[in-house]
């Protein structure tokens, strides 16, 4: 009866959830969009163009490397798009266009693909790309573009006015010369994707609602920075000092989008909290005692290399061998 019927046999489960790598990455891209809009609003359309160049370069290198090595293409998973966006977000809007191209080359080929591609890299590609740029061409990325006024939104030139960022004020121990509301909205100087805490928080909320990330890493990271800066303020207004430290620099971008990168963060709940606290401690240490004005990227990169170690030491409790449960079973046996 059943001779002609061809049935597929496979190991259970026979159904899978709808969420796949591509849909997750798409959610992250959507979550990154508010920050891009804010960047265009603050720095002009050049911010958008710089991001496009960075994304195009990342996707190209991802495609070209896999093609050259005769490996199946992985452009479809969209992870290279995110690397490109995040890399651009770490750069000032007036950065020359060729800079993110080299950054993307380093991030995609050296950091990601040479280690086996998606899921195998041990450093966040975008942050490593930024570190590479900082080490190679510091002069091009050190001077931050100042926010534009409204009528300048079509500014494409790299000759925009540069200004000291709030972080350089904080580094000297004084409060920045911008209001806390401008800090929150992002009408400040800085890297293009990091300025608007509001936009980043909206994106973060989207990721949490869509269950792409949990709150553990961002919250433990931000809380650690908040507590440390509140307890050890420079100046006499510790609350304001704390707020400026939370809203300034790349902290929001780092805590919400970089430290939560799946591949380079722990998978255990306890490990994620340890990771967040570690990032927070290192960020404050670098901001307080380092020669760089900002510590977020190096803090996350340093914690990146500890991830497997953290996972190893935060192994979840074995089912059935908890002290309490074991006690209960003995109780029962004694009855």
């Amino acid at each position, binding site marked *: 009866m059943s001779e002609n019927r061809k049935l*597929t046999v496979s190991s259970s489960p*026979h159904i*899978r959830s709808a969420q796949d790598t591509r849909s997750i990455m798409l959610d992250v891209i959507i979550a990154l969009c508010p920050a891009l809009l804010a960047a265009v609003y603050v720095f002009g359309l050049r911010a958008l163009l710089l991001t496009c160049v960075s994304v195009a370069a990342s996707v190209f290198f991802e495609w070209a490397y896999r093609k050259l090595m005769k490996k199946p293409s992985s452009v479809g998973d969209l992870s290279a798009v995110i690397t490109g966006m995040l890399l651009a977000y770490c750069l000032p809007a007036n950065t020359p266009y060729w800079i993110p191209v080299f950054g993307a080359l380093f991030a995609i080929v050296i950091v990601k693909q040479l280690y086996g591609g998606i899921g195998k890299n041990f450093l966040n590609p975008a942050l490593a790309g930024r570190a590479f740029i900082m080490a190679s061409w510091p002069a091009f990325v050190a001077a931050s573009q100042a926010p534009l006024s409204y009528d300048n939104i079509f500014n494409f030139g790299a000759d925009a006015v540069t200004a000291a960022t709030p972080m350089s004020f904080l580094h000297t121990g004084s409060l920045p010369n911008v209001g806390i509301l401008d800090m929150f909205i992002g009408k400040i100087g800085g890297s293009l994707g990091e300025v608007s805490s509001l936009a980043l928080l909206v994106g973060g909320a989207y990721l949490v609602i869509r269950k792409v990330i949990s709150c553990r890493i961002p919250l433990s990271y931000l809380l650690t920075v908040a507590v440390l800066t509140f307890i050890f303020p420079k100046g006499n207004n510790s609350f304001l000092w704390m707020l400026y430290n939370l809203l300034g620099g790349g902290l929001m971008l780092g805590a919400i989008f970089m430290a939560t990168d799946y591949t380079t963060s722990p998978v255990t709940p306890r490990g994620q909290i340890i990771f967040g606290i570690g990032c927070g401690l290192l960020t404050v240490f670098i901001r307080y005692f380092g020669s760089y004005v900002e510590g977020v990227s190096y803090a996350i990169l340093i914690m990146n290399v500890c991830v497997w170690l953290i*996972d190893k030491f935060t192994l979840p409790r074995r089912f059935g061998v908890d002290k309490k449960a074991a006690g209960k079973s003995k109780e*029962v046996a004694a009855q």
Partner: protein
Amino acid sequence: MLFKFHGGVHPDEKKSPADKIETTPLNPPPQVVIPMSLHIGAPCRPIVKVGDTVKLGQKIGDTEAPVSAPVHASVSGKVVAVEPRLTPAGTMVTSVVIENDGLDTPCETMVPYPEDRLSDQDAIAALIREAGIVGMGGATFPTAFKITSGKGKVDTLIINGAECEPYITSDYRTMLEHPDEVLGGIRLLMKACGVSQAFFAIEDNKADAIRLLNSKNPKDSGINILSLKTRYPQGAEKQLIKTVTGREVPPGGLPAAVGCAVFNCFTAYSVYRAAYEGRPAIERVVTVAGSAIERPRNYLVRVGTPLEYVFQQAGGFRKEPHKVIMGGPMMGVAVYDLSVPVIKATNALLAFCEDETKTVENPACIRCGKCVQVCPMNLMPLYLYLYEQKDDFAGMEKYRLTDCIECGACSYICPGRLHLTHSFRAGKAKIAARAAAEKARKEAAKGTAAV
């Protein structure tokens, strides 16, 4: 108070429309194939031979081994073959093939058990064994052995009515259509285990069944109906015990180690029928559903009915099936030959026209950690996978591969579409093979030393 097990997933329930339609008795097939091993444990020996005439409910296979359950004829007729036949699990097992005479002549043993003996603990256990009752939820562990081996250790009886797998509604329909019989079966199981309290655990997506059962005043006889959160694998034995009692079965241990005994809802129903109707385990309710099925619903099917016949009687396929599964979509077994028979644990037969496994060419772990979040055994599937792929036995042991209950939650949730559950099955097989090889080597060394 209910406890909570860690992790779990919530796939689309897809219980409709089969859950709304009354169970339909399926015509017995012209021929049944009854494997001599319808349970976990020692297989039975056939006690009939080719040419014998058998009656409905007549015992046709048995064994002396303690972990076993006898096998009965599910139709009356003539034995036409006793030979190895393919089972749903893909193994060849000695089976008795009976040509149905269509008369259903009942066997003399099919009479209600004397009421006065139903108060005796051991008599109930003996009757359960004689009726060939096994764990009807899918594990097929001999029920009588569970009762006798747990004697003195069990203080809590749990009846599993969770039915947490998508599509399956056979327990649900049984609760709705035979609430008194199910509760009666539970009372017998309580007596057999010597306990005065039982918990009947049902997921809250079966609210009307919970309401109906509660209207029968189950508390008067010590039965507590519990409404559990709908979350897969709520019905997995260890997770169910954790939810109901907060106790955790130790690794490698049985529920009796924490004073629990768990019986499936349909097992309780089968116990009732064996005691009060004299009917052994020769038929069961099967959910027939899936995208390829013309008329999804529950059918009362005789054990030994070929799957092909079930599908045919159920209205045939709407479309050519791509995959046929015995059991649920999360833990069921894919069947490649539809001549295999329905067995005692067949709670569902699903046929899908499309591949719903969403297999990709290049599965890649992105370390999202979702597998760690959903694992009900607190494992780290992503690391286990790495160790299994590398044949790293130390790693597999450290990350507790053998604790895996193969519920499939990690594979279900994995966005990188890794074959996690499958690789853990392979890993367990590797560990077993290595242990066997080591044992053989040791024995060989001992042999040489003795010489």
